[in-house]
């Protein structure tokens, strides 16, 4: 499976302005495609269901259930996301490709059973009085979405971004078409459409792995052996996903900022919509992030470690390290610059944008601070990625733990301080986490040769 960096370099090799634009557009689509598709699909399903599904509250219930399923599944699968990605990367490095498919199946069995075991009692408690079909659909959606994340992390680990994008396009396309046909069957119809789309997406990703990485075994649990999955990565994945969602959860369940939607599930009409839109504003930053990391950074990273492994001269090792540091700095600055432009655009034209979308201007201050926060989230992602490349797992654990704690505490504090401070909890926690990350990265890059040679 060709790496994404290879395709991006091919586009860049043309050395023309159009080639550069194409490369950035491609990186943008590849890096942001799956979740942009998810957001757009959920929005479109909502838009075309409103006139048909009576009362319109049902659409809000559908969106709340879906958001909760996505958040819960990301947090649950977060336990294995990074550790399994590392396991796969290690297997690929050791040329043990035959272990990928059977261990994916082993993990799928584990995740399916655990997800179902958690979801079944929860739907009984959370949705009292709901129909049996609705509860079954929620359990099935939760199990399927958890499995989709597992498939996605494996394909991301294999750098098969194109396959991920195609499958997401297919899955959400099917969900949209079916939702159009099933929207008369209320909440159950919309959930069924989503479930079918997710299931097609899941099977499609499995097919890609099955065709691309054949094996003699169908199921194995090699990833559970001692030393195969790093415990620090288990916690990192868990902390990161809780960190991303904790401010939303605080706003959903704080009595001042939320309202009941369905069963025990609540939503925050003030907070949810701006966050939803703000996430669309990080596409340019994600494109720059992917371009920089997968082309320039990886190139010098490979050269540096190849020189170390194969006994290159000290001068050459120094040179490659300097280039790596330069590219890292430039990459982070580039993300900041592009996100800065996006923030300015939203600050200037945010009101008009909200007016066009038919959303009240009351959301504008929150939208502006959320765009700043999501911009910092891209920088944070970039930093974490560089730490992952340098195998500084403890650093990432510290940063994600810090982000999770601060985001939870500061979001709660922002609610206490009043509506003008909403969104600042998320933004300030990211600013602090990014600043700490920068200081640590600076220190690590200074000591890179020493640590590479002496502490291995």
């Amino acid at each position, binding site marked *: 499976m060709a790496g994404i960096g290879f395709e991006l370099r091919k586009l860049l090799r043309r050395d023309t302005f159009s080639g550069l634009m194409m490369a950035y557009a491609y990186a943008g689509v590849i890096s942001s495609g799956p979740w942009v598709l998810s957001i757009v699909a959920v929005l479109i399903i909502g838009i075309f269901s409103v006139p048909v599904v009576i009362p319109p509250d049902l659409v809000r219930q559908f969106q709340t259930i879906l958001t909760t399923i996505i958040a819960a599944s990301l947090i649950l699968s977060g336990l294995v996301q990074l550790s399994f990605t590392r396991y796969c990367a290690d297997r690929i490095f050791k040329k*043990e490709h035959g272990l990928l498919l059977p261990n994916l199946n082993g993990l799928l069995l584990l995740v399916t059973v655990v997800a179902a075991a958690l979801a079944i009692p929860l739907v009984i408690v959370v949705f009292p009085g709901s129909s049996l079909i609705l509860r079954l659909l929620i359990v099935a959606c939760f199990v399927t979405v958890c499995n989709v994340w597992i498939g996605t992390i494996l394909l991301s680990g294999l750098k098969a971004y194109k396959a991920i994008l195609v499958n997401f396009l297919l899955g959400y396309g099917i969900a949209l078409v079916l939702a159009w046909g099933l929207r008369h069957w209320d909440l159950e119809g919309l959930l069924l459409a989503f479930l079918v789309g997710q299931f097609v997406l899941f099977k499609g990703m499995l097919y890609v792995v099955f065709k691309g990485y054949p094996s003699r075994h*169908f*199921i194995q649990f090699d990833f559970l052996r001692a030393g195969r999955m790093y415990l620090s990565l288990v916690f990192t994945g868990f902390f990161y996903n809780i960190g991303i969602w904790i401010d939303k959860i605080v706003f959903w369940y704080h009595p001042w900022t939320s309202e009941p939607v369905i069963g025990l599930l609540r939503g925050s009409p003030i907070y949810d919509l701006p966050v939803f839109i703000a996430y669309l504003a990080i596409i340019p930053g994600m494109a720059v992030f992917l371009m920089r990391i997968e082309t320039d950074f990886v190139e010098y990273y490979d050269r540096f470690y190849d020189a170390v*492994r*194969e006994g290159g001269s000290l001068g050459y090792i120094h040179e490659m390290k300097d280039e790596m540091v330069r590219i890292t700095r430039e990459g982070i600055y580039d993300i900041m610059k592009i996100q800065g432009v996006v923030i300015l655009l939203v600050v200037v034209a945010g009101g008009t944008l909200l007016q066009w979308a038919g959303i009240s201007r009351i959301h504008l201050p929150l939208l502006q601070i959320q765009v700043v926060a999501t911009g910092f989230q891209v920088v944070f992602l970039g930093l974490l990625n560089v730490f992952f490349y340098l195998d500084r797992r403890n650093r990432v654990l510290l940063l994600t733990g810090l982000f999770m704690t601060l985001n939870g505490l500061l979001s709660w504090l922002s609610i206490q301080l009043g509506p003008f401070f909403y969104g600042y909890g998320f933004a300030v926690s990211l600013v602090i986490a990014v600043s700490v990350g920068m200081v640590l990265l600076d220190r690590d890059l200074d000591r890179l040769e020493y640590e590479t040679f002496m502490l291995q």
Partner: protein
Amino acid sequence: MSWGLLLVFALLSQTAAVWALFSPYPQAMQLGLFVVAHLVASLLLSALLLMVMPHRFARRRTWVLLLFVSVAFFIPVLGGLGLIVDMVYFRMTRKAIKRPEFHSLKIPPFLEEGSHIAQGMGEGGAWSRLRTVDLPRPQRLKALLAVSTTGGRKVNRLLRLATGDTDDEIRLLAFNLFDRQEKVVTQAISQNLGELKKVRGSAQRAELCRSLALSYWEMVYNDLAQAELQNFFVEQSLNYASQACELGGDDPAMALLIGRIHLLRGQTDQAEAMILKAQSLGALPARVLPYLAEIAYTRRDFKALTDYLQQETSLKHKPGIGPVAQFWGVASWQK
């Protein structure tokens, strides 16, 4: 019961499960009926898929079955449909992938008797395995270990190649093996040097010098030293071989060694004189003729080369020199 009939039962059970959800019964009864019918359908479909899967997936059948059942059960209807799609996929592609694996083939009867002979790995196999960086590490390590037990010039070249490998484990193992070989010879040298200081009798001194000359030469010949160090060892070997000749009289092996050292340095006249001396002292023709032929070759005296190689017919059957002797020895190339 046939495969088709089981599939019909599975589909009927699944339909019954869906019907139970829409039935007018109380919710608890709906749930009970659904769970029973859906479980039966999930089990049947999973078992059917297991039957049509390629034989290579035969291991851990219980776990595979558990995976299918859990997906089919916890993702109602769609999970089952997915299993049916997988069945169609496997049935359609099974012909293409139904290929007996090597390990599953039975040994032909006439080979069974010899099956107790351990499988070895020659130098060629080891070279090809070590040079293929895509091979899994265990195989490459095995190749290195297998070849290291034999020793010799070619093996040391192989070890030297492996010391530059990208894989840390292989590189370290190669260094270790190399170091071990070097240590054996170095120990012999230091032991002989120690004894040489103590010994007074010329016969014993000659014997020790002979050993030292051969040990230093072994370091060079077996490729255990390179560059400056190699020059030093050659010098030492020549020095001790000369001393051995002076102290212990004429020794054909030492004369031949001195000849070979001159040949290595490109001093063909001196080399020829020493090798001819070794021959006159009684060295076996099969030992000296290849070097004389080599000298003739460097002088472009192909007739002399043919003459040398024709003198000893056994050369044609010796490994290494054999093909050379066969080619140059027949003289047909001159016509």
